[in-house]
C-alpha cells in the first residue's frame, strides 16, 4: 500500500500541507519571541522591550510553540502515518472541519495575545484575567483537535473491521496512543475553562485557585506526552529504516505505548508539589505514577539504542562503538532524530529530579525547569519534528529540500546550542534564578554567581535559535522553490512508514481494555486531590488583570 500515491489521499494531504505550513509559521514567530525574551533577560543587555511586551511575547512563545506548532505538526504527521500505513481514507467532514476550527481558534487566541490583552502566560493561572477571546480561541482550538482525533479513530475502526485478526501496525499504534492521551487530557480542561475562566473573563465570576490549577495540571502533564509519543513513534518506526535496520523489539515498543496510555495522566499533581492545600498522600501517589510513566521512556532509551546498534553493525560497523560511525549521519532526517533522542535522555534525567518531590522545591519555578523543557518539548519533540519535516516536505509537496548542506548542519547546531543553553539554565536554577521574570537582576540585588550562567545561556540560545531560523528558512524555501522531484524522492517517506512486519493481533492491541484501565487509574489518582479541595470548601477570589485592575468588588 505504500506505493499508492497522493491521488488517493489528495484531501488528507491537502490538510497536511496546510497544517505543516501553519506549524512552520508558528515556529518562526514563537522562535523570534524566544530569542527576544532571552536577550531581554540577559544581564548587561539594554532593556529594549517593556515588561508588558516581555510578558506578552512570553505568552506567545508558550502558546505558539508548545501548543500550536506541536499540535499542527502532529496533525500532519498523524494524517500521513494513518493513511499510508492503514491505507484508509480519513473522514473529510471530521478532518476538514476540525482543521478549520483548530486554525480559527489558534488565530483568535493568537490575536488576543498579540493585541496585548492576554499577558497571562500559556498556563493562564486564575485569577489572572485575559481578554475573553483568549479562552474562547483556546476552547475552539481544542474542539477542533477533537474532531481531527475522531477522524483517526474512525479510520482505525474501519481498518480493524476489515482486518480483525491483524495486529496494529507500529506507526499507527504510536499515533493512536498519542491521540488517546489527548482525549484523556483535554475534556476536563475544556470543562474548567468553560465553567470558570470564560465566565471569569466575561463577567468577573470568582474562582478557586487550587481547583482551577488542579484542572490545568490534569491537562498539563499528558500534554507533554502528546508531544513526546509522536517523537517516540518516529524513533521506533522511521529511524531504524533510515539506517537500514529494524526496531530491536516490537513488543517492547508496544508495551511502551501502552504504558504511556496508562500512566501519562494520573500524574499532574507533580506540577503542584509545592502547592499548599494538597496533602503529602496525594503528592506521593502522583509521584509513584510519575515513576511508572518514566518506565516507557527508559524502555525507549534501551530499545532505540539497541536498534541503532543493530543498524550500525549491519552497515559494517565493528567494535564496541565502531557501529556509531557507520550510521547515516549526513542524512538530516536521521541525525535530527538521533540527536533529539540523545537530548531526551538528559531531559529524562532532570525530569526524574523534578518528580522527586522532596527535591522539587529546590528547582520549582526556577530556570532549571526552563532548561528541562527545552530538552523535552524544545528538542526531543521539536528537533525530531524538524527531522521528520525533511521527509514530509518532499512527500507532501513534491519538492526536495532547498539546501541539503544547510539541512545537514542544522540538527548539529541545534544540539550544540541547546546543550549550552540547557546546561547553563539547569545550573542557574540550582542557584535559584527564577523563571518567567523580565530582568532577573533585581536592580543589582541578585547574586553575582548568576551572571556568567545567564550569559552562557544567552550564547547557547543564540546558537540554537539561528539553527531554528535556518530550519524555517530552508523549509519554506523548499516548499516554495525546492527542486521538483519525480514520484519517489529518496528516502521515500511512504515506504518508511509502511509496516511490513504486521503479525496477528494480541493482548497489546486491545486498546479499549487499556483505555478502561487508564480511566480507572485517573479516577483513583484524582479522587484524592479533588476530595481534598472540595471537602475543604472552595475559596473563591475575584479576577485581576495583569495590570493589577480588579473588575469586581
Amino acid at each position: 500500500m505504500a506505493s499508492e500515491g497522493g491521488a488517493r489521499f489528495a484531501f488528507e494531504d491537502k490538510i497536511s500541507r496546510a497544517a505543516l505550513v501553519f506549524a512552520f509559521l508558528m515556529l518562526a514567530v514563537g522562535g523570534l519571541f524566544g530569542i527576544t525574551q532571552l536577550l531581554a533577560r540577559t544581564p548587561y543587555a539594554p532593556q529594549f522591550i517593556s515588561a508588558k511586551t516581555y510578558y506578552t511575547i512570553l505568552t506567545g512563545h508558550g502558546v505558539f510553540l508548545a501548543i500550536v506548532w506541536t499540535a499542527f505538526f502532529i496533525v500532519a504527521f498523524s494524517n500521513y502515518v494513518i493513511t499510508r500505513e492503514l491505507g484508509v481514507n480519513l473522514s473529510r467532514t471530521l478532518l476538514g472541519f476540525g482543521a478549520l476550527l483548530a486554525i480559527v481558534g489558534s488565530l483568535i487566541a493568537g490575536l488576543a495575545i498579540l493585541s496585548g490583552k492576554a499577558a497571562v502566560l500559556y498556563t493562564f493561572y486564575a485569577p489572572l484575567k485575559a481578554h475573553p477571546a483568549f479562552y474562547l480561541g483556546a476552547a475552539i482550538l481544542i474542539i477542533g483537535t477533537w474532531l481531527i482525533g475522531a477522524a483517526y479513530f474512525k479510520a482505525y475502526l474501519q481498518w480493524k473491521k476489515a482486518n480483525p485478526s491483524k495486529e496494529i501496525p507500529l506507526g499507527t499504534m504510536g499515533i493512536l496512543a498519542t491521540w488517546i492521551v489527548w482525549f484523556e487530557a483535554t475534556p476536563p480542561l475544556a470543562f474548567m475553562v468553560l465553567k470558570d475562566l470564560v465566565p471569569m473573563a466575561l463577567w468577573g465570576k470568582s474562582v478557586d485557585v487550587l481547583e482551577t490549577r488542579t484542572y490545568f495540571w490534569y491537562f498539563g502533564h499528558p500534554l507533554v506526552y502528546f508531544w513526546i509519543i509522536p517523537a517516540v513513534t518516529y524513533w521506533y518506526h522511521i529511524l531504524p529504516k533510515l539506517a537500514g535496520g529494524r526496531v530491536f523489539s516490537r513488543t517492547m515498543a508496544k508495551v511502551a505505548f501502552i504504558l504511556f496510555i496508562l500512566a501519562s495522566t494520573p500524574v499532574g499533581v507533580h506540577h503542584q508539589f509545592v502547592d499548599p492545600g494538597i496533602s503529602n498522600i496525594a503528592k506521593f501517589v502522583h509521584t509513584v505514577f510519575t515513576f511508572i510513566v518514566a518506565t516507557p521512556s527508559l524502555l525507549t532509551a534501551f530499545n532505540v539504542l539497541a536498534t541503532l546498534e543493530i543498524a550500525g553493525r549491519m552497515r559494517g560497523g565493528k567494535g564496541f562503538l565502531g557501529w556509531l560511525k557507520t550510521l547515516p549521519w549526513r542524512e538530516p532526517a536521521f541525525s535530527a532524530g538521533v540527536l533529539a533522542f540523545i537530548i531526551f535522555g538528559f531531559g529524562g534525567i532532570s525530569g526524574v529530579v523534578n518528580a522527586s518531590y522532596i527535591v522539587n522545591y529546590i528547582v520549582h519555578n526556577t530556570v532549571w525547569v526552563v532548561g528541562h523543557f527545552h530538552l523535552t518539548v524544545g528538542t526531543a519533540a521539536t528537533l525530531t519534528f524538524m527531522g521528520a519535516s525533511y521527509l514530509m516536505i518532499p512527500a507532501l509537496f513534491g519538492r526536495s529540500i532547498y539546501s541539503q548542506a544547510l539541512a545537514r548542519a542544522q540538527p548539529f547546531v541545534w544540539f550544540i546550542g541547546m546543550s549550552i543553553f540547557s546546561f547553563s539554565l539547569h545550573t542557574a536554577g540550582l542557584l535559584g534564578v527564577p523563571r518567567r521574570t523580565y530582568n532577573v537582576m533585581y536592580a543589582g540585588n541578585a547574586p553575582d554567581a548568576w551572571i556568567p550562567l545567564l550569559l552562557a545561556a544567552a550564547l547557547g540560545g543564540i546558537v540554537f535559535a539561528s539553527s531554528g531560523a535556518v530550519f524555517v528558512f530552508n523549509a519554506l524555501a523548499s516548499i516554495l522553490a525546492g527542486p521538483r522531484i519525480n514520484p519517489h524522492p529518496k528516502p521515500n517517506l511512504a515506504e518508511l512508514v509502511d509496516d511490513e512486519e504486521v503479525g496477528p493481533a494480541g493482548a497489546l492491541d486491545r486498546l479499549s481494555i487499556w483505555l478502561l484501565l487508564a480511566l480507572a487509574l485517573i479516577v483513583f489518582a484524582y479522587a484524592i486531590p479533588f476530595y481534598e479541595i472540595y471537602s475543604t470548601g472552595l475559596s473563591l477570589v475575584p479576577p485581576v488583570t495583569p495590570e493589577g485592575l480588579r473588575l469586581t468588588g
Partner: protein
Amino acid sequence: MAGKAEKLEYAWIALVVVMLTIFLGILGYAVIGEGYSAPEDAVTCNVKKLEEQITPGVKEVAPGVYEVDIVARMWAWQPNEIVLENPKKVIFRITSADVQHGFEIVGTNVNFMVFPGYIAEITWYPPSDAEGEFLIVCNEYCGLGHQNMYGKLIIIRS
C-alpha cells in the same frame, strides 16, 4: 541470538524497576522517616477580610522560634524585610491578596506557591550556618510588575 537479545531486554527492565523502586523508597523514607515535607497545610481564608485572619509581621514566640506572617500583593511582600536573630525554627504563614505568587528565599530550600484564598503554613529549620542577607523573590508570574516583587531576609547570629 534471539535468546540473548531477550535476556538483555529482561535484564534492562529489571534494572529499571529496581532503580525506580529504590528512588521511591528513598523519597518515602525522607518524608515519613525524616520528616522532609513539601508544603501541604493550608486553611481557606476570605480575601476581602484578610486583616482579620493574618497580621503581617515577625513574632518570636520562644527563643529562636519565629512566626512570620506575610501577605503577598501585586507587587510586594508585606513585610518586605524580615529580620531574624539566631533562628532555629521559622513558621511562615503566607497568603495573597490578589493573584498567585511564589515565595522563594534564594540560597535556601524555602520555595512554595502562595494562593489568594488560602493561608499556607510552612515550617523551616534554617541551617545553623545560614547568616547574612538573603534575597526573597516572587517566582510565579503575577502580572506586569512581577519582576519588582522582591524583598530581603536578614539572619543575625550572635
